[in-house]
């Protein structure tokens, strides 16, 4: 094994004007609750339906 990663995948459907608004919203959710940035990092992949 040369690398391993353990993580959590959260799928969210967000009602928003556009992808960027949705991304900003989700970014806030990650920073405030979904990730504890002392021990976790997060990455957001945002797509329009």
């Amino acid at each position, binding site marked *: 094994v040369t690398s391993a990663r353990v993580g959590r995948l959260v799928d969210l459907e967000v009602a928003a004007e556009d992808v960027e608004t949705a991304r900003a919203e989700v970014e806030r959710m990650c920073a405030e*609750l*979904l990730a*504890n940035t*002392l*021990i976790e990092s997060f990455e957001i992949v945002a797509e329009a339906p």
Partner: protein
Amino acid sequence: MTEPRPRIAVVTFPGSNDDGDARLALSHLGAEAVPVWHAATALPDDVGGVVLPGGFSYGDYLRCGALARLAPVMDAVRTFAAEGGPVLGICNGFQILCEAGLLPGVLRANRQLQFLCADVTVRVESDATPFTSACVRGEELVIPIKHGEGNWMADDRLYTDVVERGQVVLRYTEDVNGSRDRVAGLANENGNVLGLMPHPEHAVDPLLGPTGGAPLLEGLIAAARERVADYAIGGR
């Protein structure tokens, strides 16, 4: 003359399971424990202290203590703490205080990746908090632990700050769960908010084992009594 029994709020979140013992222990030691539901938007009038008890708030999903920090009652607890009121977080309560940003660092899974249940010895590192005011530095207390996530960590910079500000209040005398430098209990900068992994509420009656929890709860009760006396004078 009997001393007045100060009212101390014990918060119950869905999944709390040591709220009952916390109330019993506080009553046993001379306080009046007031149950408070997590959905309350205010603390009852004239409470002189707050306990966030152990358990598994909201099932401890996501991370332990993470969801509880958003409970309605936590705004009132934050305000109470900011006004200098004594707040004690035990086990899950400690995890909640860290997630809420009222205490530094975070609690991770034990080094052993196992739930641990044992009587442990902790040493008092600071007597500058209301909770340890009846203790002397270096004093050892035997108190049980029972947790899966008691491995407190902070990065080097945060840890150095925490130590320099004298916020480390209790350390295990030997490594228990991988916690950084054996930290078992921490206070905020003002000393009025304490979080610890051991359960003082389970260690107050010699019939049931060690009694190392009594001085910490008595410290809380004494601080609560002073605060309630201030209300009576009209300090509020």
